[in-house]
C-alpha cells in the first residue's frame, strides 16, 4: 500500500487502467469512498489502515486546491491520525511495561510470552 502511494506520488503510473494505483486519475467520489473504507476498516483493530489513510490522503486533504468532497476527506484523515496516535501511545506503554516487568510477573509473564529468552529471568 505504501509503495503504491509512493509510486502514485511520483506521478509515474504504470497501470493506468486500475483505479487504486494513481489517485490523479480517480474521480473525487471514488477518493472519498476509498478514504471512508479505510477509515471504517481501521476500527476492526487495524491501526495500520488508519496510518495508510493518513499518508495516502494527506496531500489530497490538505495540499490540493479545495473541491467538494475535500472537507469530508479532511475529517477522515484527521480522525485516522488521531486513531493512529492513540494506538501508538497504548502500544508503547504496554510494550514498555511488559518488557520491564515480565520477569517479575513469573507465571503470568511466561503465559503471556510468545518466546521466552533462555538463561535470563
Amino acid at each position, binding site marked *: 500500500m505504501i509503495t503504491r502511494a509512493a509510486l502514485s506520488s511520483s506521478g509515474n503510473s504504470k497501470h493506468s487502467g486500475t483505479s487504486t494505483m494513481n489517485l490523479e486519475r480517480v474521480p473525487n467520489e471514488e477518493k472519498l469512498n476509498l478514504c471512508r473504507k479505510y477509515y471504517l476498516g481501521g476500527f476492526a483493530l487495524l491501526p495500520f489502515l488508519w496510518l495508510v489513510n493518513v499518508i495516502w490522503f494527506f496531500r489530497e486533504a490538505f495540499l490540493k486546491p479545495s473541491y467538494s468532497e475535500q472537507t469530508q476527506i479532511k475529517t477522515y484523515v484527521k480522525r485516522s491520525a488521531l486513531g493512529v496516535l492513540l494506538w501508538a501511545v497504548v502500544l508503547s506503554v504496554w510494550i514498555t511495561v511488559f518488557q520491564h516487568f515480565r520477569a517479575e510477573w513469573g507465571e503470568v509473564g511466561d*503465559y503471556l510470552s510468545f518466546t521466552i529468552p533462555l538463561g535470563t529471568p
Partner: protein
Amino acid sequence: MDLQPNKWILCLFICSFVTGICCNSMEKKIYLNLNYTVACVRLLNATHQIGCQSSLSGDVGVLHVLESEENLDWVLNTGHSPPYMVILEAELFTRSILMKLKDGSRRVAGVAVIEPNTNLPGGFSPHTTCPNENSGVYTETYDPTYAHCNRTMWNPFGNGLSYEEFPFPIFSMKEDNDTRVIRQCYQDHNRGENGSIPQYPLCAMQLSSHMSAVTDTPTCMRRNRIQNDFSISPEMVCDPLGGSNIWTSTRPINNTEKGHKPSQSVVIAAARMDSRSFFFDLAPGAQSSASGLIALLAAAQALRNISDEDQPNRTILYAFFEGETFDYIGSSKMVYDMENTRFALDLDNVHSMVEVGQVGIRPQGSPIYLHSDPVSRKNDSVNTEVQSLIENLKEASSSSNTNVSEPEASQPLPPSSLQRFLRARPFPGVVLQDHSSTFTNRYYESMFDNPENLNMTYPPELTPEEQLSFVTDTAKALADVATLVAQTLFLQAGGDSAKATSITADPQTVARLLYGFLVKSNNSWFEQMIPSDFKSRLVDRPTNFYTGVHMQKSEPSFLVEYILANLTGTVVNVTQEDCKAQRENEDDKESRHLYSYMWVQGAPVANSTDTDSLCVRSSVRLSPAISPAFDLDLLSSADYSTWTESRWKKINGRIFLVASHELEMLTLGVGVGILLLSLILTYLISSKAEILFCSGREPTSATY
C-alpha cells in the same frame, strides 16, 4: 586448440585456491581451542539457583594469573583492561577469593581453576558444613536441639562454594599443554616490563557455558511445559536429577506384586552410590561414596555362599541409593514407593536397617563407629532392637579383625539414607562410619576425593593388569569392614552365631572393585561382567560418581547393576535368546517375577578373541530414583528434593590475542568511512557518466 591450455590453467588455479582456503583456516591461526573443559553448571531447586552462568556467546576477558589474594586488587580495582579472566592455582581456590570476585563481577569475565596433580594439604570441601540440612530427619518438629547441625557440624572443612551463584563462568583445567600455553601467553603479553602498563595486544580467553534454565525449579519446569505444549520444536530448559536405585535380596522377592508381602521380614543393607564436586561430571567420590559401596558389594558376595540350610529366617535386602547428595533423591523415592504400594515391599516388612557410610579412611587399628538416632531410641522397643543390632555388630567385630565403638549417646545421625526412613516411622537402624563426630574426610564432595585421599597407592612398576589384582592396605582394611558388615547382616537376619564366623569378604574382590571404581573402569574383570554391547561404556579414567539427570544412567549405577548381579547371582544354563527374554526356557512365564537374567560377556576363551558368554540369574532390580516432588507436582515443596540441572548448548573455551577497544573502533570507523566514500564516488561517477566516458562511439552500421 587454444582453449586446452587455458582450461588446464584455470583448473590448476581453482584447485590451488580451494586447497589454500581450506587448509589455511584463518580461525585456527587466531584461536587456540582448549581440549579439556570442565565447567561449573547451573542447578536449581525449589527456591534457588546455584552454579555459574556465562553470556550467550561466551565471556571474553584478558588473562590474569593470580599470584596471591592481595593481587586481586589488580583485577578488581587497578587493572587497566577489564574485564579479566582470572586463572587460579588450586591453593587460591578459596571462598574468600571467589566471594570477592563475585562482588566485583563487573570487572571479572570468568575464572579458570588449575587442578593440581596432588591433593592440597589441609582440606577443601565445596559442600556445606551441614550436608542435606533440610531434608533429613532432624527438623525443628523432630527435635530442635539437633536441627541444622546444632550438635555436630559434620563437615567442618565445608565452604559452601558449590551452593553459591556466580554470574560468570568457572572452568577447571588440568596441568597439561594448554595450561603451559596459557602461562606462556600471559608471560609474553600480559605482564608489563618493570611494572609498566601492559600494552595491547593482550592474551585473552573466552569461556562459554550459557545455561538455559533460570530462577528456580518451578519456573524452569513450567517453561518446559509451555515449550512442550505450544512450540513446534520444543526446547527444554532443565531436567530433574536422579537415576535408578539398584536393589537385590538374598531370597528372591516377587517384584510384580507390589505392596505388603505377608510374613516377609527384611533387613535393609544400604549404601549410597553418588557424589559430586564443584564442577560438572567430575566427582571421584572415593571416600564419600565408593568406600561404602564397595564394602557392601563385597559383603553381598561373602553372604552369597551360605548354603540353604544355614539361611537365616529374615531376608537381607541390599539397596544402593542414587542421588543421596541432592537431598536424598533415591531413598526418599524408595520410602515413598514403599508407603504407596509401588515397591515390592512395604515399610511394615522392614525389620531394621544397616547403612554403610564413609568407611575408607582408617589408619591402623582405628575403630568403626556405630551411629544411631537418639530421638527414636527414646522409644523402648526401638531402643532394644538397636541394642541387639549393636550387640550383633560387636559379636561380628570380634571375628573380623575390626573393632567397633559407639559415639556419644546424644549425638545425632550423620547425613545418611537412614534419616529418610526415620522420617517415615521410627525403627531401628545403625550407620557405620569411620568417624565418631566430624568427618574424617577432609575433601568431602570435592575433586580431591580420590584414591590419594584413601591412601591407596600402587607400587610404581606395575602394569594395569597387575594393579587390578594388587591388594593394597586400603583394600585389606575395607575387606575387614566388609566382613564385619556381612557377619552382622547374617546375625541380624537371624543366622546362627557359629556359622557367622566363617563368613569372610575376599580382599581380592575388594582390591579389584577399588581399582575399577577409582582408577580405571575399563579393565578385564569388569569387562567379563557386562554385556558385550555396553563395552564402550567402560572408560579409562576414574568413575564419575555424579548423579546426573534422571534419563541418563549414571556410571556407578551401570557398574553396580552388573557387578551385583555377578557377585550375588548364579550362572544358569540358558540360551542367549531365552536369557535376553527373561525366561529359562520357551514356556517359562514365572521366572521374570522373581529373577532377572543378564547375558554377560564372560571370561575370554584361550587362543581366540571370543568370550565365553553366559547367562547370570540374580534378583537385581532397578527402581526409579526420581524425587517424589516431580510425580506429585509439588515443585516448591520443602519435604522432597527438587533439584534439577539446567540444559546448555555448548561448553568450550579458547585463547586468542585481543586488540584494544580503540583499535577495534578505529578499524570499524575506517571501514564504514571507506564504504560511504565508495558509495558517494559511485553515485558521482554514474551521474556524470556521459561526460567522463565519452568514448566517441561510432554508429555500428556497417559501411562497406
